[in-house]
């Protein structure tokens, strides 16, 4: 239970901020926290994590908060790449060729969730393909 003590502030915050399907389990020297929450809640939890474990370097926590679990097909997504354009590929993986690009800040539509890493999106110009979910942020309506 030592890890639950170390990350108590984080677990408490997850409990009080309304994380859905929250699961906290300790196994093999790692604390696993799983659940679904909105993007801002995920950000708050990660900021707490960063305070409890500077640089996230201890390797004793897996914080798996899914901020896009509730996003449904047809939702609008904003391209939130660091600076470059978002690659749209013909398949779910960086080994598939780039068939189109979406500019940073552009709004695209979710067609289908292939898996947690890759979603099929459609641009306003009608181009459809696979994009890495890390660079897609749901537009809060």
């Amino acid at each position: 239970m030592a890890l639950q003590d170390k990350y108590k502030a984080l677990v408490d915050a997850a409990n009080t901020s309304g994380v859905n399907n929250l699961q906290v389990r300790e196994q093999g020297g790692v604390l696993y926290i799983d659940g679904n929450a909105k993007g801002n809640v995920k950000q708050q939890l990660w900021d707490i994590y960063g305070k409890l474990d500077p640089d996230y370097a201890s390797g004793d926590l897996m914080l798996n908060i899914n901020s896009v679990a509730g996003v449904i097909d047809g939702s609008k997504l904003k391209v939130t790449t660091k600076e470059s354009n978002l690659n749209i590929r013909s398949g779910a993986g960086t080994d598939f060729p780039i068939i189109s690009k979406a500019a940073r800040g552009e709004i695209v539509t979710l067609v289908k969730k292939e898996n947690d890493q890759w979603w099929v999106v459609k641009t306003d110009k009608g181009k459809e393909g696979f994009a890495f979910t890390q660079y897609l942020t749901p537009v809060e309506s």
Partner: protein
Amino acid sequence: MKRKTIGLVVVVGLVFALSSCGSKTKDADIKVAAENVLAADPACSGLHVTINDGVATITGEVKDEATKTMAQKAIADVKGVKSVENNATVAPPPPPPVVPSATETEAAALTKAVNDAIKDYPGVVATVNNQVLTLTGEVKKADLQKLMMSLNSLKAMGLKSIDSKGLVKK
């Protein structure tokens, strides 16, 4: 005269001792025999037995119901045991793994997903071994949180833990 008196005291004392402690001595012998029976089976290593007037009481923990029944039969067969009170408890099954082990295909998919996730962080080097990710190289401090966020989400693909001690944060 004095010698006779001492002799009498000793005899009386012995008789008294034997009559009052007779069943206790017997219980102690049965206990030794019962403990030897338990010690012979490693499955019973978590069990203890006490004897009171020939009634054996088993306490402790075993891994399953079958071991509990077997221990009871073994103790019942010990000479001098009149009955057995079986208070042994059965250990709950271990919890299922939080992260299930991966097949070869799943392990390959995880490695690919890791490489996709670090693609935009050029200095970062990742190796995945037995569903454990080791990060080395270097990353901008400002990018660290976002990188860790996307890598932590790979638990859904079977990632067990992340060792980033060797990753330099600039």
